[in-house]
């Protein structure tokens, strides 16, 4: 039974990214510190009456959730491409665990489950900060949950894309490195100009301000953005599945 959950604990170089690898835990810890720093920098030092006088809500929720989004999306991008495992060649030969039984599974039955769980795991440490930021901006827990779902889906998209780049070019590919970063910039920043309705950062801003975009109401803005993200996610998941299936058939033919 333990074998079926090995992707949760496996720390070998055959694993893309184990849950508790030092690099991942370090990234999480520094990520929490960075977000805490963002909270301190953007703390509403003005008193509450001055916000009421201007009828403006503090943007702490937007600032904090954007920081969480950027950090987690980038970490997931690197996790998907396998950049977070140990890269020391010689260390990979030390203390190899004995291999008894290995089984190949398709992406949906193995990789996707791990991706889902790990993306959720990476989001969890930021939850207390998001709850605090939600209270400061006067939003509801529902808005916080919606923001968490948005961050989760966008991060998962980055992760799956990183995995596709890994399948296409491997861990050390320069083009894979370039395209993953380009994808990251495109999804999080370029869409703010090219396709504002899809941009997750603008959605978070709108949720904080509860202001409406001129062309798209905020509720449907969120739904539209999520729908686009989901479609892209499905496309890349399908691509991952096809690539893995292709590689399995290729290995079977060679053997």
């Amino acid at each position, binding site marked *: 039974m333990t074998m079926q959950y090995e992707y949760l604990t496996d720390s070998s170089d055959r694993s893309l990214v184990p849950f*508790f690898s030092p690099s991942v*835990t370090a990234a999480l810890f520094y990520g*929490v510190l960075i977000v805490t720093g963002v909270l301190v920098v953007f703390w509403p030092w003005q008193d509450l009456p001055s916000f009421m006088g201007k009828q403006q809500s503090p943007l702490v929720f937007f600032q904090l959730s954007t920081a969480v989004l950027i950090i987690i999306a980038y970490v997931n991008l690197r996790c998907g491409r396998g950049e977070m495992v140990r890269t020391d060649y010689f260390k990979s030969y030390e203390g190899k665990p004995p291999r008894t039984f290995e089984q190949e599974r398709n992406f949906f039955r193995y990789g996707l489950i791990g991706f889902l769980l790990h993306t959720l795991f990476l989001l969890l*440490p930021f939850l207390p900060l998001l709850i605090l930021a939600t209270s400061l901006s006067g939003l509801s827990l529902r808005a916080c949950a919606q923001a968490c779902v948005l961050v989760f889906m966008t991060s998962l998209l980055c992760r799956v894309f990183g995995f596709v780049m890994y399948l296409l070019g491997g861990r050390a590919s320069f083009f894979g490195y370039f395209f993953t970063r380009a994808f990251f910039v495109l999804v999080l920043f370029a869409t703010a100009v090219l396709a504002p309705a899809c941009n997750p950062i603008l959605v978070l801003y709108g949720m904080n301000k509860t202001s409406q975009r001129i062309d798209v109401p905020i509720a449907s803005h969120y739904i539209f953005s999520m729908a686009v993200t989901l479609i892209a996610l499905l496309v890349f998941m399908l691509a991952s599945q096809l690539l893995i299936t292709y590689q399995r058939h290729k290995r079977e033919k060679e053997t």
Partner: protein
Amino acid sequence: MLLLLPLLMPVSALATTISMEYSLGFSGYFQLETWTPVTVVLENRGRAMRGTLEVLVTSGSEYIGDVHQTTYAMEVDLPYNAQRLCALTIRIASFTHELVIRLRDEEQILLSRSLNLRPHYTTTGFAVVVAENTSPDFLARLPQQLTPVNVRPRFLPDTWYGYQSVRMLITTADMLESLRERQFQALTYWLKQGGFLVISAGINYGALLEQRIQGLFPIQVMGHRQVTALRAFEEFCGYPLTSDDPFLVLQTAIPGSKVLIQDDQLPILTQKRVGRGKLLFLSLDPHLPPFSRWTHRPVFWDQVLAVGPSRDSRSIAVDEEAILKALVAAMPVSFPNVRVVLLFMGVYALLLYLLFRRIARHQEQPWRYGGYHLLIGIVLVSIASYGLFFSPQARRRLTYNSFLHLTVHHGMATGGSIIGLYATTATSYDVSVGAIPSPITHLRPPTSDSLSPNPYVLYETTAGQRVRGSAGQWTQSFFQVSTAQGFPLSGYVYRDEQGVQLVIDNQTPYTLVDCWGYVENRLVFLGDIAPHQSQRKHIASALLEQQPPFDQQAGELIAQQIEIPWGGSFLSSMQKALIEDILDAVREAYHSNDGQIALFGWIPSAMIPVEFSAAAIPGDDLTLVTWELPVVAETPP
């Protein structure tokens, strides 16, 4: 401006079975910037229906950009073949926009009428004659500085503040008897607060002996006396009232009154104080000869108006802007303490660091050596974040505070309460401001850029008035509620060898805390005044001599000395913010007055209850009471 006919504008139904007739103001006229009665008569000849009657008043200027609508509403129940009279009191600040009166049910507007206000406004107060019919000649002889109107009893206001524009009201006892109970209560309330009521006699004086009139003024009637001339009028207004034929004058006696015109032991014009107002009783019928043909009636009525109640020229007025700013600064919602947040984050970061380090040392079994602890720790810290920060803020999504300033004169307290509503999230509210009808207006928030208020509707219900509105996210709304109520706080001051003795009789159920007295240009702290008792406060002569005359610097020092305790205190915050303005107002009003001593104190609770339909809306209330005590002779009475 003379008005010839009462303006009743019947509007017939067009396509519905419901018809609407309405009457605006007094005989169709209203004074700008004052509260005005609107009477709507609805008749239903169809199936029973329930709806809402709304009167929409549009104020503001398109040029300034502050056009907004105030809606006054009441629920209406119209059974089959029934007629309902609905009385509302509205405030019209501008005649440029049409007044809209409409009846609606939940789905649609059933009836709507628009009224151009331009022909109906006046800038002067009214002299109201309450009668079914009054001759134009009678109205023409009333004081020219007022707008004389004839109003039928059913169209008199239902609220005391509906009489705001009335300077003098002339009527008879049987007209008063025909008023609805609410109307009579409103009239009585208005009278006690400084209204001026002139009641004249008639041939049938039976109505004077009815319980309602006797409760207003205990008049004793001894029958009629026949006279041919009343020379005493000459002393009052410079001209006698004579007649070729004899005429009847009612013989009356009113205990506790003052006779203004008396002819041969026969009181003709009697004055009685009722609260802060005055009631005059004229013992003859002014609609019959010889009075109705007397050429000097204008002089007489001018003189009558002159003896009316005077407005209190001296009062302690706290700047409204200062009150608003103080309320905003003391609003019962704030951000979490940044030190608590930093401590929380520091503990959380330390917990993560320790758990991650433990996991890093036990890579072979990370879940056993920290993984589950990490998950549990994150969940617990999230719950702590919710409990420490989110939940307190969520409970304060809508909060309020209120400040009432009461001025007490002759056992009556009048004043205005400013209620501030603060919303950190878009929400609606439904708040009651007590069972006694009170005029409610909105105020512009002190630091707001918005020129128009958040939308709201003023509802008249059987249980009192309600304000229903919606507040946007991070907005504040302010309402002012004027009030007048009995307040048994009195006393006197006298000087003896030891100093100044203050006898304060507080028969209210409230403790007045942190009281100050302005005595001989010195400010003296009096401490607390307990309820339901009379107490003495002694101020030694030595203390008064040592203390320099109160000035602005002393006021600043007093404000600096007020400390706000840890955790905040609404009383202390408001005291600190307003004490200088209050002291300046006291000094300005009583600086050179030796006949009265000004006092003020605080009641840390609400006298106008602010009740929300939604449970547990947190808020703070405070009342400032200002009153004066007369200085009497050295020996106590």
